[in-house]
């Protein structure tokens, strides 16, 4: 019974983290048909920036609670700056190319950013653990939960809810849906597709950076951070259905819970379990749990 509680708690925390990372990726894919490998670099950049800023904040002895706002600020700055650079400097020139070629272009960007990150921050780890212990703990039955983790769950739910609300209940969201559904038709109706793309990519980038920034206090930020995150995010996005935001929520939950189950019940299967689910879903439902089949055109 206690094990089950641990699995559920761990699983939900892990799922929240996965959702924050993956939702930006699926949004960008849904709108722009760009499966962004460099999303992992945005994650890493967000984590490094946040860790550095938090370190400086505590060194100066400012109010500790302010460091939480600092994490958000770091994500915003990194996401906006990098988003602008990537979309205006690269992706704009690749519209209309094969999806797979665009994946490779973002893979190239990922390679470049890996070295940029190393040039800026070097090879040592950047721990910034202070915010993690800031909020205290809550005990629920046998569990002792860190309130930071609970805040992470709340943040994930907030992001999921906001994206759902934004997409289905606002005018700009409906314009976005029109672009997702049929880009050419939307353009013909007078929607400025370029601007929609830019805004979408900026939102996606900020979310990627936010994933990193919010994780920075929980881990020791070090080399190779982005590499593992990419395939995990791929797994979530593919399980849920490429481009589907409710799908990302479902995918994150499924993968989060099964990883937690594997960690507690069969530790050898930790990595295996995630990709087993991804592969099985692809085999049974190639378009993901909530994805739509694509029509074949002659």
């Amino acid at each position, binding site marked *: 019974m206690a094990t089950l509680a641990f699995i559920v708690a761990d699983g939900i925390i892990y799922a929240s983290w996965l959702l924050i990372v993956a939702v930006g990726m699926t949004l960008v894919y849904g709108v722009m048909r760009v*499966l962004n490998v460099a999303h992992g670099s945005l994650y890493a950049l967000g984590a490094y920036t946040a860790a550095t800023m938090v370190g400086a904040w505590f060194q100066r002895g400012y109010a500790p609670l302010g460091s939480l706002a600092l994490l958000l600020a770091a994500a915003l700055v990194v996401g906006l700056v990098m988003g602008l650079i990537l979309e205006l400097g*690269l992706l704009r*020139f*690749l519209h209309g*190319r*094969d*999806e*797979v*070629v665009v*994946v*490779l*272009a973002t*893979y*190239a*960007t*990922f*390679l*470049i*950013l*890996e*070295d*940029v990150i*190393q*040039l800026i921050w070097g090879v040592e780890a950047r721990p910034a653990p202070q915010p993690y212990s800031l909020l205290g703990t809550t005990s629920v039955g046998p569990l002792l939960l860190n309130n930071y983790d609970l805040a992470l769950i709340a943040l994930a739910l907030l992001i999921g809810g906001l994206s759902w609300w934004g997409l289905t209940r606002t005018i700009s969201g409906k314009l976005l849906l029109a672009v997702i559904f049929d880009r050419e038709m939307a353009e013909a109706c007078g929607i400025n597709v370029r601007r929609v793309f830019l805004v979408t990519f900026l939102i996606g980038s900020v979310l990627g950076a936010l994933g990193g920034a919010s994780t920075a206090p929980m881990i020791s930020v070090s080399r190779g951070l982005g*590499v593992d995150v*990419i*395939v995990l995010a*791929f*797994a979530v996005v*593919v399980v849920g259905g*490429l481009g589907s935001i409710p799908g990302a929520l479902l995918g994150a939950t499924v993968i989060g819970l099964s990883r937690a189950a594997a960690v507690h019940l069969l530790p*050898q*299967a*930790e*990595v*295996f*379990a*995630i*990709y*087993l689910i*991804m*592969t099985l879903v*692809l*085999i049974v439902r*190639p*378009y993901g749990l909530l994805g739509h089949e694509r029509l*074949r*055109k*002659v």
Partner: protein
Amino acid sequence: MRAPDRTVVALVMAFVVLVAAGFFLPSWAVSLLVVSLARGIVALGLMVQFRSGLVSFGQALFFAVGGYAVGLIALKLRVTDVILLPLVGVAAATLLGVALGFLMRRYREIFFAMLSLGFSMLFYGLLVKTETLGSTDGFNVPTPTVFGLRLSVLATRTLLYDLTVASAVGVALGVHWYLGTILGRLDTALRDNEVRVEYLGYAPARVIHVQYVLGAALAGGAGALTALAVGHIDPSMAYWTTSGELVFVTILSGTGSVIAPFLGSLVFGLIQTFALQYAPSIWQMILGVALLAIILYFPGGLWSALERSRVRA
């Protein structure tokens, strides 16, 4: 009399030159060539798929299966024959390719890439946690023997080099012939319009299955050769970054000729060797910039750049 096929002539000449050069080249160049040619063999398989518009983001699966098959057979069954071992790698990867091909052939575009990625990461997850296979450290592959004889280090290296050169030229000739057959010519047709290929009376799924198995066999053989040449295998052989490198080489090379993947792989190997030596902190950046430049300015890869300069001259 028909004019001789220029690709065949070039390949035969390359074979003679490379084997002869093997006696003079310094050892670092020999290792570089072995690894590059082996990687070129994998890229050749990827190239055939890429001609149909399919990109496998998990070719490292077969590469690693080939390597681990060799390692296991050599370690557990004490089979160390230098000819037999690569064939074991090919056989293991081919069997797996035939089996997985029944699934893969139903997938296209990004879904093909993702499912192949999934399979390779599954295998990676398996290897990382298997302690009898050394987990993340992997294990050393015993030195290969010839007809039961153990040769000197130098002779073994030369032998592996000649074997790799022969395999590379052999599979290049084979694939060159395959691309000239009707089956081989269907690949670009599939890329352009699959439905019309069906109307012509061909089964796209079967074409893709054949290509997939071909790619698997080539990657398995290359993995086996790499394992023997390097003398060590570890799970990173199956990780997605290895697949990424292999796809990188394919894009870098272009699909213009069966020679292209080997040239591209050699260029990749040279960049890697020299960048790691002189600018280790920016070598990934160099790769990234090169890949972007190819995608943006030379969609046909290095080969198209070569051809373009030849037309101008």
